């Protein structure tokens, strides 16, 4: 009985991780009415619970999952609830999931209709992002201070809702749920900055709204296009349009597998004609949200206007949603994109990296400097994402965690500096040293997490194009010079305030320890992400033999479309649709 309860808890843990901040937000509002300080305590407790749940999830995450049937599911710890679904679609579902072209279909009695679910799960791709968002929420709450007495607790409640929307977006297994959480996170961010931000917030929010409306529309059109395309590709002769499938798993894995194993059919002709446009629009939307160099103005302004706690979640959490979207939805099917389009994206990323690094040389304001560093980081990630080897995207995942933790430390320490500017001395004290460690990690110094991240991204880029890797190193050198200049101006000279509480001191120290631990043993992350990234990349590079051999290695034995939330692929050649 107890074992069953534990198993049930573990199966639904991702859902609980997403739901917990929403419950916490309600509790904060409830408690803060009586005593504003209790609202803050509830928010801190909630974020600590969130970290504990994520730790349990991490401990139970299997790097090479094998189900009872011997198959290898894409997602683990899946919770799936019906959201929008008609009885027709349910009855149709009982007879089996949409079948491939050419397969025999006997009885179709009901018109297909969409089935949209509230489904959450975790795999090697979203795992590091979820862990990061859960980790950085605690310092975000600690750095936030309520400045309007009449709105006691509201800031913490909105912050927790913001965290929940970020987690929901990352863990969603349904694309519509993904889009809803994506937009909700943007909406909550704008509320946070617009209401609690600094003096210049109005201009920043207006600028952000315009950019985000454009990218939201691109993402929306792209997702709907992807859904419709998959529906048409999986239709049969009797039923030309299959039911609309919003499953993240089917859309990310199904289309490239359809393309690989249905050579010469109408489905593939359709995808080759329309796929580039759909993926192009989707990519533009995600890149707009990433804050890559030409599109970095909005987020730099928003970052400068954000209160410190929001800046942490914005810089280390929100901007990663674009990277995650590209990884999840665009990359697996990206081989359909024309070489010119991919080349243009890569050149844009490279130029963005160089320009952002150059601008860092002359920027004086620290927050704007960090904004430029973020733009450079995002450009670097974008460049490494398109590499042909799995080592590039794996490096991106490490880099996302490294940058997230380091930027959280830097924003936190900078915030404390501003609050206690008069307390200075000649030598740096220990919070300064933690900031220096964070900067060294950003520079990719060995022994810290930035080193394996940048090394793997560099190796991926070198495999793709050695000339680019030269420019990447040049940009790295320029940004290193800029960071050293910033170090000499700030943390290596002035001391830190000494009146911080032990709890506030412990958080950056823990983060610093995490940077060192993961830098020395990056295999802790790599082993958990490797399987999912390898599966995705084997589809991305369009090599059916490689795909087949990879999935045989993973001991996949079930037939295609075995589950809604976990897409399976045929094992042997005779099971493929002809």
């Amino acid at each position, binding site marked *: 009985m107890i074992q069953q309860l534990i198993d049930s808890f573990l199966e639904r843990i991702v859902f609980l991780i997403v739901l917990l901040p929403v419950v916490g937000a309600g509790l904060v509002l409830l408690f803060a009415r009586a005593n504003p300080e209790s609202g803050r305590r509830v928010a801190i407790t909630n974020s600590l619970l969130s970290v504990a749940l994520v730790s349990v999830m991490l401990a139970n995450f299997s790097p090479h999952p094998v189900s009872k049937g011997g198959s290898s599911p894409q997602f683990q710890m899946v919770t799936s609830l019906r959201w929008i679904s008609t009885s027709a679609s349910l009855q149709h579902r009982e007879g089996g999931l949409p079948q491939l072209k050419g397969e025999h279909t006997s009885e179709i009695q009901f*018109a297909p209709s*969409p089935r949209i679910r509230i489904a959450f799960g975790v795999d090697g791709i979203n795992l590091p992002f979820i862990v990061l968002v859960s980790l950085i929420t605690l310092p975000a709450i600690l750095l936030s201070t309520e400045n309007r007495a009449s709105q006691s607790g509201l800031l913490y409640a909105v912050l927790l809702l913001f965290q929940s929307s970020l987690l929901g977006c990352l863990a969603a297994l349904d694309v519509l749920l993904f889009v809803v959480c994506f937009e909700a996170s943007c909406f909550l961010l704008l509320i946070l900055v617009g209401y609690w931000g600094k003096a210049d917030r109005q201009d920043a929010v207006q*600028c952000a709204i315009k950019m985000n409306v454009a990218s939201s*529309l691109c993402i929306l059109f792209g997702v709907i296009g992807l859904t419709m395309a998959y529906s048409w590709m999986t239709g049969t002769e009797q039923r030309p349009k299959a039911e609309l499938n919003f499953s993240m798993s089917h859309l990310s894995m199904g289309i490239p597998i359809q393309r690989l194993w249905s050579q010469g059919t109408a489905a593939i002709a359709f995808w080759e004609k329309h796929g580039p446009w759909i993926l192009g629009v989707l990519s533009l939307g995600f890149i707009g949200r990433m804050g890559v160099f030409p599109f970095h*103005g909005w987020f730099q302004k928003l970052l400068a206007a954000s209160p410190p706690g929001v800046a942490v979640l914005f810089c280390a959490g929100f901007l990663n949603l674009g990277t995650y979207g590209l990884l999840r939805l665009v990359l697996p099917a990206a081989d359909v994109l024309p070489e010119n389009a991919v080349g243009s994206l890569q050149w844009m990323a490279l130029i963005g990296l160089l320009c952002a690094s150059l601008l860092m040389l*002359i920027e004086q304001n620290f927050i704007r400097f960090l904004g430029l560093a973020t733009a450079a980081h995002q450009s670097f990630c974008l460049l490494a994402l398109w590499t042909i080897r799995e080592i590039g995207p794996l490096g991106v995942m490490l880099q996302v965690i490294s940058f997230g933790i380091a930027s959280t430390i830097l924003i936190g320490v900078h915030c404390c500096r501003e609050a206690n500017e008069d307390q200075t001395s000649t030598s740096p004290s220990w919070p300064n040293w933690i900031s220096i460690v964070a900067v060294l990690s950003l520079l990719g110094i*060995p022994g810290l997490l930035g080193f394996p991240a940048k090394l793997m991204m560099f190796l991926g880029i070198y495999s793709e194009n050695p000339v680019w890797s030269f420019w990447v190193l040049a940009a790295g*050198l320029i940004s290193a010079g800029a960071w050293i200049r910033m170090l000499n101006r700030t943390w290596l000279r002035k001391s830190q305030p000494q009146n911080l509480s032990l709890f506030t001191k412990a958080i950056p120290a823990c983060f610093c320890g995490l940077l060192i631990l993961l830098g020395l043993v990056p295999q802790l992350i790599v082993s958990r992400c490797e*399987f999912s990234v*390898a599966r995705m990349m084997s589809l991305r590079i369009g090599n059916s033999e490689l795909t087949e051999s990879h999935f045989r290695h993973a001991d996949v034995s079930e037939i295609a479309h075995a589950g809604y939330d976990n897409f399976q692929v045929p094992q042997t050649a005779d099971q493929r649709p002809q």
Partner: protein
Amino acid sequence: MDRFLAISAVFLPALGLIAQWKQGPFSQEQHQRRLACSLCAFAGIAAAALFVIAFRANAPLASVHLFDWVSLASIDDLQIKFSLRADLQSAAFLCGSNLLACLLLASVNKSPLNVLQLVAVNLLFVSENGVQTFFCWEVISVSSYFLIRENSVSSISRSSYFLIVQLISDLCLLFAVTVLWKQTGSFDYAVIFSKEFIQAVSLENTHSMKAAATFVFFAVAGRLVLLPFTIPLNPAGRFDYRKPVWLIGVVLFPSSLSLLVQLQPVFLASTNYQQLLLLIAGVGVVSGVWTVLQIFGIWTATMASIRFSFERIFDSVVLRPLQLSAMFIQWLERLVSGWALPRLSELVSASMDQTFGVLKTGDVLFYALSVILTATVLVVVLVGMQG
């Protein structure tokens, strides 16, 4: 036994960090120095014993596997492990370095950076793959920078030049390692420098080997601040480092020499590069003599004017164009964000005001409603099409 000796020879000096504790049995400075020197002496003796065992065995001993750093078995089959190679060459380097450190630790400033440098150098001597070598190489760079920064009487910004040169050296080594990895698919020296591979590459593809050799040359030149880095950016002359013997004798020179010995097969691809190796040695000797003379202040006055002119050239050729290009990009950015985007946004706002005049009250509200409305309409259209 040989594994124990190898681990002792590499990591024993790290116990010297105990000496940094301010309380306990080693609270007095002389006790701290004695402990650090004794540990280095023991490490040197262990390395000497290892040398004897390897000499008598007349073959490389079994390497000590520490841990798998990164292991990607699915597609790339990439495995990077940290291990200690025990053979004559590494034992000789370990013995020399540890004994020299034992002699010099008594005179240098007490700092954890000294210990860190020594362990990094020891790990470099025994590395079996390119990533471990690069790891140690970069640790040496950064720790040297902080050591110089702590002990320099010059301005802080000047010591940053030293770090930049060291980073260039790191990047050169990274390129060399990456070129070899691209050719062989492995970072292990045993695979990279196997006889079959060397023969095949020498016959078919010498360009990659030449590239690797060139990058190794620049890595060593940067590390020792030899030509072409020596004149504008010499550490001894510019940073007035108080203890150059430790930095050059224990850290920079042995690590460079070890790297050249470890990667010397890349020079075998072409006889020209064997000559280049000799050139490196020649430049090293000249530069070393010059550095020693400069330490004693003999050439300082005469070289000051030359160095000043080189600084000017470096500033005008490298730094100014970088700053100018950055300023140009900033100007472009301001032009776009200050002139073009406001006009574009005015146009968009005007058209939006006409369309959504009712929703003027709040931009955020407008944003949310527009997205929700568009999503709803599209979903309804989709469902309708399916029906």
